[in-house]
């Protein structure tokens, strides 16, 4: 049942919807619930949107999305070779955004972190950014009580 996929796409806003559904279709092999898929789609959207608007600042560039399944553990990475993040601690703060003029909410990283079971981001100025996220299917969900 273990499997992987690697996807390469140009940095375009329309590829956010495409990348999200590709990862969802890949994850569907693990027979997830609607909520689990919806969490993954939201997290992937945020990561790809960041690559497009922050990493490549709306210009040309290539985005790499990988996903792998080991049992019920899904790992997803979203990589860009864009401008990178100089102050990661600041970037990860809820509500922090470097692009308030674009009406960004500054909640992207916070959403990825909360919707997925593991979340790491590494980045280097002018080299690019790698977001890595894990979802483990079929877990009870601590912290949600409705």
């Amino acid at each position, binding site marked *: 049942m273990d499997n992987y996929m690697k996807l390469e796409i140009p940095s375009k806003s329309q590829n956010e*919807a*495409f990348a*999200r*559904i590709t990862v*969802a*279709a890949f994850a*569907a092999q693990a*027979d*997830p*619930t*609607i*909520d*689990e*898929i*919806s*969490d993954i789609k*939201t997290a992937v959207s945020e990561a790809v949107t960041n690559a497009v608007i922050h990493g490549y600042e709306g210009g040309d560039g290539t985005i790499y999305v990988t996903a792998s399944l080991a049992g019920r553990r899904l790992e997803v990475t979203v990589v860009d070779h864009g401008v990178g993040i100089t102050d990661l601690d600041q970037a990860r703060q*809820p509500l922090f955004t470097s692009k308030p003029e674009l009406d960004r909410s500054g*909640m992207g990283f*916070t*959403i990825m972190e*909360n*919707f997925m079971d593991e979340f790491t981001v590494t980045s280097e100025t002018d080299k690019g950014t790698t977001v890595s996220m894990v979802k483990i299917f079929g877990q009870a*969900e601590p*912290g*949600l009580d*409705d």
Partner: protein
Amino acid sequence: IGEIRRYLRDNNPIRVSRSLRDIAYKVLQVRDSLANRFAREPTISEIAKELNLKREDIVFALDAIQEPVSLFEPIYH
């Protein structure tokens, strides 16, 4: 963030496979009614608009009721 998350989801234990099939049947209904209205085959955007879904979501859902891929070949497992 808990609130955002609750807004986006409703702790639904239903398997995505079932919900995809439900969406797919709706897609086929809408396709038929649009085909009648337009007197031609509707495009995926027209169906997506009617159902307030993304085109990509419609494609994904439709695959859940995919008939055996080819009429000529058995499915290989």
